[in-house]
């Protein structure tokens, strides 16, 4: 789906960034007006990291990452969205290191939607993975230009000077000249060829690999950080939209007069009908436009909308899951095969069988979606907490019937996102209403809107079957999965898992079993399906990690040993050898192989350091699991106490091998966040659907983890010089199985259907 999304996402083509003068946005997006652009002449062809199918981006210019003002301020663009991962700090960290600028001089500028940056889709745990090398190049280019400018002033060869701490220094005379003084002459120098650049070696890094404090921190502790919900424009109106409870149903009638009578309401507008496939098009509904959020939400209550029929009105998630569970025990469509699993299964001495299910989930970021737009003279400007400014630009343009060049998208801070804010629906709504009213409009989503109008993590069923030989070796393995596909959201037709989704922890299973069959079953979609932090890895890692634990129990060996046994000797796994078109998160297997050694290493690391192999008190136990996703490796050890039917999570330890790490503190905080996100979904995450409509509405009935449920969390980062892998998502998948495995070892109850609170108090 990431690939699919990518297709929909690009084509954005604004060629210029512009100066942003609005008060609230100066700090956030304020591009310098007096700075000098370094590297603006630099022509680079986007290498493979710009995604296989994004060739339309082609030979574009990467520019505007570095500008230097004559007062010494160095502006560094962050072109990716900040949603808590710390990217507004770590991208500049990379550039600044090669640039040799003092950190105090760095000013971070949030990039507008601009295809010159390459992909800005902040998803798939790939900001550092895809841009580490490019950001170093940007920094090194700028530094070289500054060195050259200084060398020219002193009339010495460039080899006789070096940059450090915002100065260029003459090696021989020790003379110094500041970046500020060099800014103007430097801006006239032709950038060096990328292959002539000299890079720092690791031992000279000043910022890369250092736990630098996030740059937005002072604003965040004083209430000054500006999120999508906070955008305020002169004369702005506020809109709240009542949307269809069932996908596809249309507005038949509504009481405009009643809504208009509410104090503060200035207009009521029926949203355009949502086409199919749904993609990111706003849902059918009616907008109430008012002078403040409260008035809009009150007016909305008076709308009394009559909704039309929908083909999805009978969808019932409980019944649906029961059907999937029935289907999953039968042979499905084979997507990867080795040997003859069915014949071998017959030969086995012992057969272990289990079905695992995960319900629908929703992102529920702390900040519900929000977007503000102005439409004037055929041009639109949007401010949104979006993960995908380019896609937003494209979608807004299409909805308004104007050229992409006439849409400017400003990216605010995102109050959490987890995949929800990859969708442009809320920005399109704001743009449509801005055009309709002729005034700036902020569309505020309520928490209820967020829970009920999501792009949900898919409901799923997984069937696992293994045959053991007399000496407890696994000689046959069958695994099946069935869930409504994200592809349906885009094509309205797909009714089975796509290769992209199966590449997330299913078709890439790393175990060394001679006789293997990986299969899928059909599962039509009835609500909008989207990607939620770590996506299908959630259900696949839960099933796989649980099943390994079950096999260990059956074979009477420690779970760690069973992992080693299944992974076998150190080797690189290629699922393509067994017929599966593996996506590998958009990377080649040459650059990012599936390396069983690294997976075993994180597992051993976490077991040893956490003490998960040590005895525990009565009623307490450890559970472990490991998973490779987003080309990184994570293992988790979770310790629980089960007493009086209540599960208390005492400790969680995780070990991550994400290759080279730019900001270890943010890797830690992402691991902490992933543990809590994973725990939250495993313990209590569940969206249910009745008569086609989501039943939950807010944090009272869609519970998320709170402080008293949050365990002690410890993170271990594997020292590595490998290419950077993903960080934001890979921590989540191994959490659920480590938890349910721990519960099993503590009390003997095996949970195969999440969430845990169906069985225990949590």
């Amino acid at each position, binding site marked *: 789906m990431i690939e699919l999304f990518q297709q929909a996402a690009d084509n954005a083509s604004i060629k210029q960034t512009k100066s942003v003068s609005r008060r609230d946005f100066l700090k956030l997006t304020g591009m310098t007006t007096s700075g000098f652009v370094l590297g603006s002449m630099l022509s680079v062809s986007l290498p493979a990291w710009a995604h296989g199918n994004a060739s339309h981006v082609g030979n574009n210019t990467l520019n505007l990452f570095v500008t230097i003002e004559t007062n010494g301020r160095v502006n560094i663009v962050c072109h990716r969205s900040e949603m808590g991962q710390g990217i507004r700090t770590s991208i500049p960290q990379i550039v600044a290191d090669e640039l040799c600028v003092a950190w105090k001089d760095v000013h971070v500028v949030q990039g507008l939607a601009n295809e010159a940056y390459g992909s800005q889709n902040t998803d798939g745990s790939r900001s550092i993975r895809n841009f580490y090398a490019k950001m170093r190049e940007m920094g090194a280019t700028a530094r070289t230009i500054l060195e050259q400018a200084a060398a020219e002033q002193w009339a010495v060869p460039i080899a006789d000077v070096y940059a450090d701490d915002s100065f260029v220094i003459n090696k021989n005379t020790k003379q110094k000249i500041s970046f500020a003084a060099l800014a103007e002459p430097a801006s006239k120098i032709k950038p060096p060829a990328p292959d002539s650049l000299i890079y720092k070696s690791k031992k000279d890094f000043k910022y890369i690999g250092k736990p630098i404090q996030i740059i937005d921190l002072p604003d965040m502790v*004083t209430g000054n950080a500006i999120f999508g919900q906070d955008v305020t424009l002169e004369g702005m109106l506020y809109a709240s939209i009542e949307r269809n409870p069932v996908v596809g149903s249309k507005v038949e009638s509504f009481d405009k007069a009643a809504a208009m009578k509410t104090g503060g309401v200035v207009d009521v507008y029926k949203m355009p009908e949502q086409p199919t496939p749904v993609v990111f098009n706003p849902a059918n509904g009616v907008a109430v436009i008012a002078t403040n959020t409260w008035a809009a939400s009150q007016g909305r209550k008076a709308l009394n909308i009559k909704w039309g029929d929908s083909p999805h009105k009978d969808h019932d998630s409980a019944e649906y899951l029961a059907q999937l569970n029935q289907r999953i025990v039968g042979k499905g469509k084979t997507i990867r095969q080795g040997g003859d699993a069915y014949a071998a299964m017959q030969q086995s001495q012992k057969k272990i069988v289990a079905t695992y299910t995960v319900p629908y989930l929703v992102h529920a970021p702390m900040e519900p979606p929000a977007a503000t737009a102005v439409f004037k003279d055929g041009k639109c400007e949007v401010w949104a907490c979006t993960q995908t400014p380019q896609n937003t630009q494209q979608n807004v343009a299409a909805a308004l019937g104007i050229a992409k060049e006439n849409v400017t998208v400003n990216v605010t801070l995102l109050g959490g996102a987890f995949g929800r804010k990859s969708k442009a629906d809320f920005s399109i709504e704001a743009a449509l209403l801005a055009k309709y009213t002729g005034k700036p409009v902020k569309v505020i989503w309520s928490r209820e809107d967020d829970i009920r109008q999501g792009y949900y993590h898919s409901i799923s069923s997984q069937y696992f079957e293994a045959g053991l030989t007399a000496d407890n070796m696994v000689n046959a393995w069958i695994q099946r999965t069935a869930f409504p596909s994200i592809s349906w959201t885009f094509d309205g037709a797909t009714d089975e898992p796509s290769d992209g989704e199966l590449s997330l922890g299913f078709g890439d299973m790393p175990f060394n079993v001679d006789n293997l069959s990986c299969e899928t079953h059909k599962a039509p979609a009835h609500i909008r399906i989207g990607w939620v932090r770590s996506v299908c890895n959630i259900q696949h890692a839960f099933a796989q990690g649980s099943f390994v634990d079950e096999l260990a129990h059956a074979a009477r060996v420690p779970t760690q040993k069973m992992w080693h046994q299944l992974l076998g000797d150190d080797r690189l796994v290629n699922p393509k050898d067994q017929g599966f078109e593996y996506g590998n998160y958009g990377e080649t297997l040459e650059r990012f192989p599936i390396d069983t050694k690294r997976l075993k290493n994180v597992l051993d690391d976490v077991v040893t350091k956490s003490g998960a192999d040590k005895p525990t008190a009565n009623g307490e136990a450890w559970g472990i699991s490991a998973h490779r996703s987003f080309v990184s490796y994570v293992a988790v050890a979770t310790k629980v106490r089960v007493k009086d039917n209540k599960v208390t999570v005492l400790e969680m330890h995780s070990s991550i091998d994400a290759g080279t790490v730019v900001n270890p503190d943010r890797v830690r905080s992402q691991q902490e966040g992933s543990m809590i996100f994973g725990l939250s979904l495993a313990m209590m995450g569940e969206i249910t659907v009745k008569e086609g409509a989501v039943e939950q509405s807010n944090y009272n009935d869609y519970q998320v983890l709170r402080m008293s449920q949050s365990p002690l969390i410890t993170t271990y980062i594997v020292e590595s010089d490998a290419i950077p892998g993903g960080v934001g998502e890979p921590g989540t998948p191994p959490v659920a199985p480590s938890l349910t495995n721990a519960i099993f070892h503590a009390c003997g109850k095996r949970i195969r259907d999440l969430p845990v609170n169906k069985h225990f108090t949590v």
Partner: protein
Amino acid sequence: MISFTLNDKPIKVDADPKMPLLWALRDLLDMTGTKYGCGIAQCGACTVHMDGTPIRSCVMPLATIAGKNITTIEGLPSDASHPIQQAWLEHNVPQCGYCQSGQIMSAVALLESNPNPDDAAIDDAMQGNICRCGTYPRIKAAIKDAAKNVSTTNVDFSLAKNAGEKA
């Protein structure tokens, strides 16, 4: 017209008395530091102090705050010098930052009423504040550090006295 004190300054708001304080702050007074997260007193993002006590402003109708003393995140020192803010900086607490205004206001109120909270007291006071990003371990550690600093340096926590000048 409803009159109250906001961060030590007298203020009048002309609005529906049923309007929750949160929306008056955000939409009418342009003070967006206080956040919306749920609207039903479930998440704590909108936490402010009323006469020194933490309240959820999303369910507090304007009518009920007439004559009261309200302190928002903007009422804390803008130089982040409050011990809680300092501890937040030291522990690099926030991820996305959206819940943090509410977390900080709850934590400040906790230390005012209990300068030396143990784990249970922290859990209890912070239970109403959701952080979807999962910064709980750091919040807890930061509160403990702030408490230590407070008890050793005797910092005056009473916001109402000096927040106005600092803000």
